[in-house]
């Protein structure tokens, strides 16, 4: 039996249909896996912070490592001014990481493989960073489009390129994560399908590929969460410390 490799991305309604002012807001399998990821995060943090030990246990160590990792990432890329955004970056990184990792389980649903989810994050970050930039620097924030040390002649072209690159940030940010997750999972499914269709004799090669790809995908799952978080930090840095 072989199925469509894109079928895993199908969103299905679970439970009753919820409609508010004509918009379908039903609970779906996507929502379910968001909840599962969130619950896993909360369980990890709950057990990680249950007792304050001087010498941490395993789970406490994990949560503290996570904290230090993100704290270092923020201070390295965005500096001290970005400290108030630490909880947001922390939640963002952890949520995307857990959604990606939960998606690696067979028969599960990958929340981040949907463009609408990643686009929501990316647009929120984009709009938030832009507002923050204008609040912090007023109209001087537009300097971000005028890099210093560029010849006057080239300035209009450079500015246009800068504006385009700035406006394409949400698209690049969302598509990067979405495409990586979708591509990885599709490939896994395709190779899985090959294992079945080639049977006991020829199925070993795609199976070994599948195993290797699983390892790669776990790496990608972590890496994409990291990239998403670090790019958010870099955008924050642009808005907070205007030195382009």
């Amino acid at each position, binding site marked *: 039996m072989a199925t469509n490799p894109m079928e895993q991305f199908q969103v299905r309604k679970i439970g009753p249909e919820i409609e508010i002012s004509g918009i379908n807001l039903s609970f779906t399998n996507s929502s379910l896996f968001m909840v599962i990821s969130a619950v896993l*995060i909360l369980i990890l943090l709950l057990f*990680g*912070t249950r007792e304050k030990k001087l010498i941490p246990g395993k789970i406490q160590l994990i949560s*503290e490592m996570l904290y230090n990792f993100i704290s270092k990432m923020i201070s390295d890329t965005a500096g001290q001014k970005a400290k108030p955004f630490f909880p947001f970056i922390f939640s963002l990184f952890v949520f995307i990481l857990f959604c990606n990792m939960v998606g690696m389980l067979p028969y599960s649903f990958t929340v981040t493989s949907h463009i609408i989810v990643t686009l929501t994050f990316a647009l929120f970050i984009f709009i938030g960073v832009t507002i923050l930039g204008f609040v912090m620097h007023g109209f001087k924030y537009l300097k971000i489009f005028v890099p210093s040390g560029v010849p006057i002649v080239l300035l209009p072209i450079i500015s246009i390129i800068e504006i385009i690159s700035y406006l394409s940030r949400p698209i690049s940010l969302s598509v990067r994560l979405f495409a990586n997750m979708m591509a990885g999972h599709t490939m896994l499914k395709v190779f899985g*399908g090959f294992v079945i269709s080639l049977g006991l004799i020829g199925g070993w090669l795609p199976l070994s590929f599948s195993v290797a790809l699983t390892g790669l995908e776990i790496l990608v799952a972590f890496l994409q969460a990291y990239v998403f978080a670090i790019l958010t930090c870099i955008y924050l840095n642009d808005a907070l410390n205007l030195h382009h």
Partner: protein
Amino acid sequence: MKKLFAIITFLLFLEKNLYSAEAGMPQLDPEYWPSQVFWLIIIFLTIYILISKIFIPKIKGSIDMREDKIRKDLEEAKTFKEQAELKLNEYNSLMETAKIDVKKIISKSRQKLNEDMQIKRDEAQKNIDKEILNAETEIKKFKKDSFNKIKSISEDITSNLVKDIFGEDLNKSSVEASVQQTIKEYQKGK
């Protein structure tokens, strides 16, 4: 990325041919977009609030506690070290003064001992000298006495001999003179 996309499209094409199923992207179907955004906002907001209000302060608290403890321990160790160094210095200075004192005491006692010995030696020397003097005077006296005694004894013996041999007394003074002479000759011959 481009390579990945090429592989994906190729594989999708392959799959479509293999299984002749419809290969659309469910991600682009807007039916459940509002639902996904809605639930994402609710769930992410929930974990954001929980993380920022509860878990981050807790983790920060435990990390701060550990750092505090380490810093305190280090400070304590530093003060202990300083105290130990102070004590060591005190000990060293005490040892130094004690050594000096000991040297002083040793030299003093040696000097005293030497003086004592000198005094005792002098006293002993004096006593010995005295004894020697006494002994010498006694010997001299004894010598003198013994000489006179020998003289009188020899005179007696001579007069007795003469009397025994010749049967008559000799003049005492002539006996004395001859003994005197013999003694002189004897002393000369010696």
